[in-house]
């Protein structure tokens, strides 16, 4: 329990030991601990980022799928519309063609009828003249009455 110079020796040893720890023990271990803490923090951040990326990718793929479906549906709708349009057009064309053909046929028939009438008229006229000739052979000259006959022919 006596005090003596040991006190000062202990005091000096105390500071030397503290200095040694301060210089060679504490800094490397604290540095390693900080580095490990940073590594763990980075790892956690990377995991979080990965999760977010996955979420984003999932969302993007869903979007792409939906977009593709929409586009396909639109294409089909367009094709259907175009088809209907084509049919409509074809129908219209066919109708015009039919009308034209009918009109042509009608005109031809008309012409035929006119020509037939003409022929008929000629033949009737010829017949009438022949008949009249035979009836009138004896009493009248065909030449003398040719203008009357022409008038009759005209009226037929």
């Amino acid at each position: 329990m006596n005090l003596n110079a040991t006190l000062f020796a202990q005091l000096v040893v105390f500071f030397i030991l503290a200095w040694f720890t301060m210089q060679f023990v504490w800094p490397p271990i604290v540095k390693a601990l900080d580095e490990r803490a940073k590594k763990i923090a980075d790892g956690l951040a990377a995991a979080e980022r990965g999760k977010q990326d996955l979420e984003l990718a999932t969302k993007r793929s869903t979007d792409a799928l939906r977009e593709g479906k929409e586009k396909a549906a639109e294409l089909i709708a367009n094709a259907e519309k175009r088809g209907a349009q084509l049919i409509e057009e074809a129908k219209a064309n066919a109708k015009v063609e039919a009308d034209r053909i009918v009109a042509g046929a009608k005109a031809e028939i008309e012409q035929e009828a006119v020509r037939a009438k003409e022929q008929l008229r000629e033949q009737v006229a010829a017949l009438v003249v022949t008949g009249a000739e035979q009836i009138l052979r004896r009493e009248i000259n065909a030449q003398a009455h040719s203008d009357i006959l022409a008038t009759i022919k005209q009226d037929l």
Partner: protein
Amino acid sequence: MSTAGHEAAANAPTAGEYIVHHLTHLNSTGHAQKSIIDFSVINLDTVVFSVLMGVLGLFVMWRVAKSVTSGVPGRMQAAVEIVLEMVNEQAKGIVHSAESRKAVGPLALTVFIWIFLMNSMDFLPLDLLPTIWQTVTGDHHAYLRVVPTADLNGTLGMSIGVLLVCLYYNVKIKGFGGWMHELFTAPFGSHPLLYPINFAMQMIEFLAKTVSHGMRLFGNMYAGELVFMLIALMGAAWAGTTTGVFLFIGHILSGSIWAIFHILIVALQAFIFMMLTLVYIGQAHEAH
């Protein structure tokens, strides 16, 4: 503890002689110090064992620090890291300057490890090292005390070291003028009549802090050592008495119980000394 307790009995000193012998330091004079304070004397055993313990502790930590990795730590590194983290957490809570902590943290770690190891010298059989020393020197009355923290010089030396660190931070943080101002105006206030009272209170505070800091550790370890001696004496009384068997059993029982309880004291006192070191240095950082 006291496997060699009965050896003391064989040399046949009285109980009083045995204890006094065990409480006498191996000092530079070769005999027990006469006066209470004599700075021409130095306790060789305290110096040697405290340096030995300090070097041992720091060597182990230095080996770990040299091969330290931020990857997966080995067991030894993990153990050192646990202690270091514990000290660092305590330091963070008490000393708020990160700059100061770079010095205070290592200081607190050194204090903790060093005192823990010095206190642990108590676990060695009480008479083991003294007997070896007596055999080596050939002097059967050679003195040797192996627990440096059971020497008031050892503990006061450390607490004065802490005081010096506190004074350093008082001046560093507050400036010499600021610290002087605090010495004369705190705790009672700034009035010329109060200056001497304030100053006296501050001086008492520094003195009380330092003395109680050193005395607390010393008292605990000294008392612990003394109890080991008494237990050893109880076992030593076995020789030659009929009730001795019970004393022998009592020695083993109480020796075991006290040693186990002493593990707590060893760790606790090291922790308390470290915490008070941090608290006192933390106080030096705070202006009143």
